[in-house]
């Protein structure tokens, strides 16, 4: 952990090498569904970061909705159904 931090903690805000930063940014861009189709050199780092932030927020919201749904489902379902679900999930 500490070795990782000290090795890449360069004084400038750019970090290590620009090439490595660009590489990471493009990797991030590939993950985000909105930016995946766009040609990588036409997208600025700021845009990638912005889309990343909004995508993470979207994912958080989805997880919250799903937890809400799951809490209701698990409260209503009886133990037999839940066990059947576990067995099914294990078998597949």
């Amino acid at each position: 952990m500490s070795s990782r931090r000290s090795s890449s903690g360069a004084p400038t805000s750019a970090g290590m090498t620009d090439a490595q930063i660009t590489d990471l940014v493009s990797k991030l861009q590939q993950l985000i569904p909105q930016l995946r189709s766009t040609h990588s050199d036409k997208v600025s780092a700021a845009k990638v970061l912005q889309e990343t932030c909004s995508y993470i927020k979207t994912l958080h919201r989805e997880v919250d909705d799903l937890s809400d749904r799951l809490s209701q489902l698990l409260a209503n379902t009886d133990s037999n159904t839940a066990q059947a679900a576990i067995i099914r999930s294990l078998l597949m």
Partner: protein
Amino acid sequence: MASLESIINAPEPSTNNPETTSPDADSNPNKRRKIGHRTVAADASLNHLHWTSQSEQQIYSTNLLRTLRHVLRRNPSPSTTASKPRQVRYAADRVLAAAAKGRTRWSRAILSSPPPFNNRRMLHKKAPAARKKVTGLRSMRNGMEKKKLPAVERKTRVLSRLVPGCRKLSFPNLLEEATDYISALEMQVRAMTALAELLAGGGSPSGLAGESLS
């Protein structure tokens, strides 16, 4: 049920799944650290593939379901514990972080954060501190130009707040953590969606076994 206890109680990221001995080089975290700092980039790409595998998702779903049944059955007093969806979210995040096996900073941060308490207390604590910080920055900036910080830096700051445990990371490490975090979150969404459909419909098994949603 030793694995359940470790996820719910102690902040121990590893050794809760005898089934997850995946062959791709994630056996020994200590070994990786000794190899050198520059293998970090290679690790990140390995982790990324790991979240998209079907077996990983199934393992997560199974663990999550077991944990949730345990958590929701405990019948805690409503004054001291958070609401049910909040508990579910907390458990889902912890099981997800446990699946990372302590290789990433965000997973370690999630596992070492305390369980959600009664909401009112936490809000009172956070709000005045947050307000102080913002007004301090603003009064400083009014002397100079209005938007002095470059856009990239502003967005980096926002990103560092969104990914748990990454507020003081350098930019490249933050990007790596964010990459892994996004893949993990996507798997979490896929698994929880499949689980919800399984519990609701009781119907087609294709939710878990077949197509991935992304």
